[in-house]
């Protein structure tokens, strides 16, 4: 029988963090950009049906990088949370802030309590709907730490490189075409390979839409926008 041995909490947390980081680093990346008409989410995703980007509520979208089964569970939990809250109070009262906090709590608890941490980073994005409010963009890491990002954010395998790239190139007030072009260029720069429209998953939260602001861009839209820019 193996003897129980002592592991210091620091060591345990470090090991867990390293494990989670490694898992996430294997996956592809996702970018969110604030642009003139709202928010744009761009993911490298070879699958057309297993989505990394999804609608949560009227003004809120979700993106997950890392282990699919894990962020898919988080996505579903987020939809349930948002729909219940919107039904109990009002559709206006569902905010990215409270959802991001709920995610942060849950992911943080799993990180500290469970044997295996979640190998996911997620983004919670909200487009402002008038009233002088600003768009919101939260990044939640595998250990539950939450970051309030401005303008752009990236998660996934090459998040750090993407952040560096976007930091130099990003400007406020890009139009849809320019935003998509910038995101594609960033993805190409860090992977040093051509990104095809077929391997992109892109969705936008468009401020001008009434009710549900989430819209996926179709393959045709992507091809048109990307070939026009060249």
């Amino acid at each position, binding site marked *: 029988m193996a003897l129980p041995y002592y592991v210091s909490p620091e060591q345990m947390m470090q090991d867990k963090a390293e494990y989670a980081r490694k898992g996430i680093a294997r996956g592809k990346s996702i970018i969110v950009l604030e642009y003139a008409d709202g928010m744009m989410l761009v993911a490298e995703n070879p699958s057309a049906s297993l989505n990394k980007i999804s*609608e949560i509520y009227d003004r809120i979208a979700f993106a997950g990088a890392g282990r699919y089964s894990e962020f898919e569970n988080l996505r579903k939990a987020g939809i*349930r949370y948002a*729909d219940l809250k919107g039904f109990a109070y009002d559709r206006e009262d569902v905010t990215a802030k409270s959802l991001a906090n709920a995610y942060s709590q849950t992911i943080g608890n799993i990180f500290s309590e469970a044997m295996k941490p979640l190998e996911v980073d997620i983004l919670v994005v909200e487009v402002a709907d008038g009233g002088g409010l600003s768009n919101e963009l939260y990044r939640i890491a595998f250990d539950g730490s939450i970051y309030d990002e401005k303008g752009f954010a990236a998660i996934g395998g090459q998040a750090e490189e993407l952040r560096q790239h976007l930091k130099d190139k990003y400007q406020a007030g890009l139009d849809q075409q320019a935003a998509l072009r910038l995101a594609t260029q960033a993805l190409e720069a860090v992977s040093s390979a051509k990104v095809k429209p077929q391997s992109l998953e892109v969705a936008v939260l468009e401020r001008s839409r009434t009710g549900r602001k989430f819209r996926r861009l179709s393959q045709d839209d992507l091809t048109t926008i990307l070939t026009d820019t060249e």
Partner: protein
Amino acid sequence: MHSLFDSIVPGSSFFDLLRQCRSDLLPQMPIKPEGLSQAEIRELKDAPHGTTILALRFRDGALIAGDRQATEGYQVSSRRIEKVYRADEHSAIAIAGVAGPCIEMAKLFEVELTHYEKLEGMSLSLEGKANKLSQMVKANLPMAMQGLVVIPIFVGYDVRSSEGKIFKYDVTGGRYEETDYYATGSGGKDARSTMKKLYRDRMTEDEAIAVGLEALIDAAEEDVGTGGPDFIRGVFPTVKLAARAGLQDVPETRVRELCQAIIDRRKLVERGVKGETGAGEVS
């Protein structure tokens, strides 16, 4: 809230989710576990009632409409209540019965459809939506036995078979598809009589709206519970169309014009002006 993030939550139905996690928010809460007395049931029956709603099929889809009045016994309780609700991109629901539970059911149904769509990444088939509504009406049966009746009509455009469809329901959740037209609520019978005379197969959108409004105006004339177009306060029936392009509202200005035209024509008929037949005329 932590429990919501556990994996032992229901599938893609918001209705089931409510039942499991927040049953206090369900419309079908029993008022009293031991049941109500006759006097209490009588009192509940005086709660605001929504009245006439109708649906009819036309060439490009299906139309759904309702008047705007709610009644409490012999009193008008609201002149601008909404009975026709958008359910999702291609369908709509109209509800007759006790106003409170009606509005709640319409709201719940809308959330149910979008909830499923978001979780599954695709929307339910039209039949699936109609069945889901049937289960919700059935779940309301104990309430209906206590006088809180909710009777919906559901219309939608079926993108798979490229046609509009109408579903009517009974209080037990029975679901029946109608091929041409249907109306229910206190003025439903009058509206049906009008549509029976005016309905034609494959009408255009304009003709369908005219027939629907004609039927609602007739219902308002014959039934005390149904409100007619109100030119003084500017309240007009709600009309929505489910077609290939999606669900759209018929703008109030257009409804107003068409109501005006119908009433003007009736005035002429009343005065016996020659050359105006009125009856049987559509537009």
